[in-house]
């Protein structure tokens, strides 16, 4: 029996099959990459594959509940050791039941809010609110940028709510069954500041 050309080149059918199966995985990996924008001072990320206003969190929003989300950005060196304090952003999202539009508040020292957004616009607005300063980061060194997101718990909102001695709330808080936490990520990308294209109209440092 005559050998096939592939066999002549030392590539078995099994290898072809394996390669065929692996292609979609590479495609999936590619879609999970972070998209980074850099204006010379801070890094912004977007994760096109992350749609946190969908699935179970969307079901909760459609039930009229407000859902908290915590997004986190970490900068790690090549040994995966953090080189900066993690940047956290906390959002509370609710869905207007009559207008079918999302309302988002970013918590913090100076909270900011936006109304009447579509799901994709609300997600994008949240990503805009997550940024990491690059002050002191060597531009010619490689780093890993890691992004992850999850639904928040009441404890994540500490410090943003009115303070007061309230033992009743403590008992209620400890006694209440936690709603299921949903995670997205972590998504990582290896990057070097010097390689990142700069956004126009912002600082051109380094």
């Amino acid at each position: 029996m005559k050998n096939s050309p592939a066999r002549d080149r030392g590539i078995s059918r099994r290898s072809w099959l394996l390669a065929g199966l692996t292609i979609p995985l590479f495609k999936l990996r590619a879609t999970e990459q972070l998209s980074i924008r850099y204006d010379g001072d801070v890094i912004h990320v977007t994760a096109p594959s992350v749609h946190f206003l969908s699935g179970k969190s969307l079901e909760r929003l459609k039930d009229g509940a407000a859902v908290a989300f915590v997004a986190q950005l970490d900068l790690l060196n090549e040994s995966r050791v953090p080189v900066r304090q993690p940047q956290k952003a906390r959002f509370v999202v609710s869905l207007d039941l009559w207008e079918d539009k999302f309302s988002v508040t970013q918590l913090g020292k100076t909270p900011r809010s936006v109304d009447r957004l579509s799901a994709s616009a609300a997600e994008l607005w949240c990503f805009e609110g997550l940024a990491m300063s690059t002050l002191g980061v060597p531009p010619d060194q490689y780093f890993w940028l890691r992004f992850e997101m999850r639904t928040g718990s009441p404890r994540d909102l500490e410090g943003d709510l009115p303070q007061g001695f309230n033992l009743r709330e403590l008992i209620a808080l400890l006694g209440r069954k936690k709603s299921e936490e949903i995670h997205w990520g972590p998504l990582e990308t290896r990057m070097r500041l010097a390689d990142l294209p700069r956004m126009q109209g912002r600082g051109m440092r380094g």
Partner: protein
Amino acid sequence: MKLAVVGCLVGGLLFAGTQDSDLNVNRRYTVDSVIVAGKGWRTNVSDSNDRLSNGLRKDLLALVGQKLNPRVLDNLGDRLKKEFDAREVTHHILRADTPDHVQVEFEIKPAGTNIHATLTKLLYSNKQGLSGGGMVGLTTHGNTFLVGLTSDGDTLNERFTGVHTRYENKRLGTDRLGVRFDFETYHEQWRGETLAALASTPGITSDAYRTRQNIQPVLTVALAKPLNLEVGASFERFGTQGPIANTETSNAVLASLRYHQRLVESDYPQDVDAAYSLRAATRMLGSDFAFASHTATLHYRVAHGRHKLTESVTLGGILRRAPLSDRFVAGNSYYLRGWNKFEIDPIGGNRIAHNTVDYRYGPFQAFYDAGSVWDSGQPVAVRHSVGVGVRESVFTLAVAFPMRSGHVEPIFMMGMIY
């Protein structure tokens, strides 16, 4: 140092708040209707129905016409869960038929199989030491099986340590009928003061016993919404002390009538709890003891904002000779707090009259106890005590002072009392 760390941890937790609420865009909408739904049933709280207690129904109804407040919904969900003994209560907010109005729907998920643990008592008193008890249980399709351990040096003049098991079904075919079956087995420890008092006054009560077992089936009948009747029996056996092992029995019929009414309409919500219970041991049930113990209690509570005032009265009397575990005791964490029960009467009494006034502002508490425990035919010595502390739900931290001339030694109590 340890205290500082615990303090910081607790302090940090105290400042934690709840999620949601103020940041929900749907707060602008008005509640049009409130629906409560369970397995196979659904009711609009605006319609009259007897599935919900009056107080809870009124609080749910109060949502209608108001702007949506998600924080209130969490609290009402917790109350529904407790009232229906449910596994979970969730709420959904939906568009109503009227523009800019929403409908609130509570969904009650009945308990399937559920394993739970309960702390029944945890109390430290500088006079009585540590008392504690806990139970673990399994609830499946309305049937609850519980098993627990107890070591209690507070409630009675004896320290009883042992096992308590219980089977309970709160809905025996109908919401109006429930059944409970308890089995307890304890080993007793006695203080010298009690043993000395028993030796000096023989015949008033039983001898000190080494062990105590009790089997107690009880049927609960909801006669009308605020009125419950319990009937049952108690088969108690005492293993006496001494070189010759002997047992004595105290077999009794039990009956209690309980009335609870909550008046929530005014700015001053009020609660009234009244109960009468009878324990009648009779030789017809093969009992060595034959006595009748009557107890009546009345609790009245009025609240206004963070102010709460509670008035509690207890009256009790035992006719004929009852075992030690049935006699009335004061000077514990319930009656005449601040007094030492072994100083008042180390074998208890067959009469009790007690009154408590308790004022709370938020978690802060001040109380005044007055009462007496005595034996019929003996002079009545009324005692008083005052105390201050912090109490939230079952957690209590208090210091109580007996009011008397001479040296006053306060009693410090800390723990969880149910």
